[in-house]
């Protein structure tokens, strides 16, 4: 692994410490029990191409800072953009004023609830930079759009491809954090997500379909597109054949099937049915009116049979190239790795400092995150990953043991209820399995299940050779709405007796 990059010097040139000192001093003077200051600069750029021609670009930099206080037992939060010490102190005053307003409403309601934070050792003057080789913002724009155009042209040249869509998102996130307990962290991370989609249209019948690359978003640099770590050439070469086969494929007969789920599909099922369900703020009701709650309630910790005994799920903020990976969270808590589900039983949750203190955990596991300087940190998802079996089977071995089933590849549609019970997913490709062999693609497939039934039906997990780190840039939570990027690693896995729908029949056709 190459030596880590230094933090961008244009970020370090900002008056980070002076602003923090001014804000924290004002908060202390106004009687805050805790105060933290967070300055962020987030640069996000995107390129979109239709049929190999640029159809849209953006390049947005968000720079600002926030002060959060605990004052009189209540939270107060305010943000600002003026990089002067006077302004930073003023924002701290606003945060204290918001805490006072909040305390007034809490008293009016007759509540005696007070905000208290779990202890965290001070981490003074720490610097952390994510693992990447070439910062995508150091690559000329023309090279980026040029590569996407060339890849689009390859798809368009293939028979049966009517249209090709291409998109690239790149992000560089810089954060400076300082709090009244003496922690001070300066961090930088880089991530990107390239996607290509081939579209087939039968002009006579009006039938159409599409197929997208499976390449996951990653905490890597530009090398992800160029150094061979992902087989772009192979995937782009095969995509038109896959799409043509899908266009010819029969619709699935609705019913119960054994499913072999590829990591490219399973990561999203993990995200929705485990990742969100093991957020303790949700389980306690703090997201009840919006993102929802969780069936995995706190009283079931250590008892809930989440799935079969071969199910082991971890949370971490440490996996190399993980999208939720960081050195320190937005409350100054050092990154950790821990068990969420052990041998099928719920044994852990994702925490921030307040929720940890409220529920008797000694320490937060570092899941506080704000997506921008203007937003308050909330408990956001760690990399939540299903562990492979040490000597587990290959995907082919899993398929070979299935008499009548379906092999699912790539994510597409997703939806789950507000307590994380009932979900429905579709895929990029579904293959019939007959007598242990793939027997061609099927169309119109969706699988539907209840979370604990589904994970309880998992009878085999693949070995480390099947493990892939998938993920997304666009996980939504909280009000005001915040987005977060998160990764989920998993092996291929076998699920027995899952309900499969035919989506055309569902549409009443």
């Amino acid at each position: 692994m190459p030596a880590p990059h230094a933090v961008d010097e244009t970020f370090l040139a900002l008056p980070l410490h002076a602003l923090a000192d001014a804000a924290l001093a004002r908060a202390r003077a106004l009687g805050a029990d805790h105060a933290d200051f967070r300055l962020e600069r987030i640069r996000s750029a995107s390129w979109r191409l239709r049929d190999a021609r640029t159809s849209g670009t953006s390049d947005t930099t968000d720079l600002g800072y926030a002060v959060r206080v605990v004052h009189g037992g209540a939270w107060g939060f305010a943000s600002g953009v003026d990089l002067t010490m006077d302004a930073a102190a003023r924002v701290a005053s606003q945060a204290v004023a918001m805490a006072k307003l909040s305390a007034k409403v809490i008293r009016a309601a007759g509540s005696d609830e007070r905000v208290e934070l779990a202890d965290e050792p001070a981490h003074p003057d720490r610097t952390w930079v994510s693992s990447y080789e070439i910062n995508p913002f150091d690559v000329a724009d023309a090279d980026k759009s040029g590569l996407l155009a060339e890849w689009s042209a390859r798809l368009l040249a293939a028979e049966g491809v009517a249209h090709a869509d291409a998109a690239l998102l790149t992000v560089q996130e810089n954060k400076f954090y300082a709090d009244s307990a003496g922690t001070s962290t300066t961090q930088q991370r880089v991530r990107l997500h390239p996607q290509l989609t081939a579209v087939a249209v039968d002009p006579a019948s009006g039938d159409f379909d599409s197929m997208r690359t499976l390449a996951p978003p990653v905490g890597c640099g530009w090398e992800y597109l160029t150094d061979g770590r992902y087989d772009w050439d192979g995937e782009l070469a095969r995509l038109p054949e896959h799409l043509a086969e899908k266009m010819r494929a029969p619709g699935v007969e609705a019913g119960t099937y054994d499913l072999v789920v590829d990591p490219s599909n399973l990561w999203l099922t993990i995200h929705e049915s485990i990742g969100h369900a093991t957020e303790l703020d949700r389980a306690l009701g703090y997201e009840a009116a919006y993102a929802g709650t969780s069936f995995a309630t706190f009283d079931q910790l250590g008892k809930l049979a989440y799935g079969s005994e071969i199910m082991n799920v971890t949370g971490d903020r440490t996996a190399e190239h993980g999208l939720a990976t960081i050195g320190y969270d937005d409350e100054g808590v050092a990154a950790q790795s821990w068990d969420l589900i052990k041998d099928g039983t719920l044994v852990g949750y994702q925490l921030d400092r307040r929720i940890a203190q409220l529920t008797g955990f000694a320490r937060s596991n570092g899941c506080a995150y704000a997506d921008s300087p203007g937003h308050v940190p909330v408990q956001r998802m760690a990399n939540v990953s299903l562990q492979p079996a040490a000597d587990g089977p290959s995907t082919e071995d899993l398929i070979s043991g299935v008499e009548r089933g379906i092999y699912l590849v790539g994510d597409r549609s997703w939806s789950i209820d507000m307590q994380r019970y009932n979900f429905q997913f579709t895929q990029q490709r579904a293959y019939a399995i007959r007598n242990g062999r793939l027997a061609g693609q099927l169309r119109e497939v969706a699988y539907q299940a209840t979370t604990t039934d589904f994970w309880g039906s998992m009878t085999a997990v693949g070995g480390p050779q099947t493990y892939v780190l998938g993920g997304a840039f666009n996980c939504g939570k909280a009000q005001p709405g915040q987005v977060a990027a998160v990764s989920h690693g998993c092996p291929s896995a076998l699920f027995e007796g899952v309900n499969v729908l035919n989506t055309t029949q569902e549409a009443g056709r």
Partner: protein
Amino acid sequence: MSTRTPRRNRPHEIVERALELSRADGCVVIADEHSSANLRWAGNALTTNGVTRGRTVTVVATVDGGRGTASGVVSRSAVTAEDLEPLVRAAEAAARDAGPAEDAQPLVGGEKVSADFTEAPAETSPEVFAAFAPALGESFRQTRAGGRELYGFAHHGIVSSYLGNSAGLRLRHDQPTGTLELNAKSAGTGAAGPRSAWTGRATRDFTDVDPRELDDELARRLGWAERRIELPAGRYDTLLPPTAVADLLVYQMWSSGARDAAEGRTVFSRPADGNGPAGPGAGTRVGERLCELPLTLRSDPSAAGLECAPFVLAHSSGDDASVFDNGLPLAATEWLREGVLHRLPTTRHSAALTGLPVAPGIDNLLLEGGGSRSLDEMVAAAGHDGPTLLLTCLWYIREVDPATLLLTGLTRDGVYLVEQGEVVGEVNNFRFNESPVDLLSRAVEAGRTERTLPREWGDYFTRAAMPALRVPDFNMSSVSRGV
């Protein structure tokens, strides 16, 4: 606040200065001055809150070349006069690097100047909650006494957008946006189990919302839920309230771009050998009757209470937006006219590609042409020929199949059983699989159009007026145990 803004940092001067700095063939500058305040609560207690204020400046540079005109778009927050030159140069560099933009068009001209272009931006503050916050505290006390818990969120924001371009446009729009969502929960006893009810409002200024009034509505619904009835999956006669109709039709609106339709990629595409017109709009279903009810789906920047920008504000180009169209006037547009598909959203570029009229997207949506009945009156008329379900709202709506625009999602916070014109209890939640296009064709009644907050899309789209719809065979695909 404006007194602290140095003269050269006033938003209209930022726009003028950036245009002066431009060395490109064309330039568009948008200065967005935004401010917001929010309160969030859970379990009868405030949880988080915040106030924000900021500025984002977007510069679009256009560079003419032998192969066409290129565009470069760069946005930065916290921009002052000193930061403008690097920002303008970055946009110009991006344009030179980009190659021809396929949506290139002449910049919108006309020397139009908004009368308030040089005035200070509008701004919100926590004061917007001056009457609301104490009333909310009082509601917490009441609900605690009544054995209920309140959860929810109140948000108010104002964006003042200043748009200028090198063709002489100087336009301004102030957009207030407010939302209130209130969710009441009750632990319940015995067979009733835990109960949950929801209501929401969109508001421009919070003077027209009273949490106590909304809490009364929620208490009524939690009362309905004291009797619990389990029903299996199946197709049910269903009353969709305005918020649910809005969520389904907003997604339909987002999926109706003219270019995708003409390329054969959406539910609004028509096969080449179909009976549609061969000329303008060929390959689309424009002109086709989509529903028997005489419903009109439209957007109008001047719709009362739903006012939104009367000109295009495009911060980047995409399938249904073009930065070249910035400043283009927006007029009332009927997407569906008395049941017939009338317009699909276009930019000037996609209008030229498809032969359809220019019809850029507008930030509100209204469905009109139903009857005069309120939802309560529709309930009173329902459940006489078998059970009818009354929904509260929909949740986690995602596209399953673009060919039919099949969407999946959940019912949430109250499915009620109507028998003989009365709500007789609460039913379990369901996962649905339905297409809004099909629902419009199968709806047998639309009620009175009223303002509503689309719950699922409320983070992005809040200005809607919809009727309730009665659909005789809504597809509840499976039971959800979620409450």
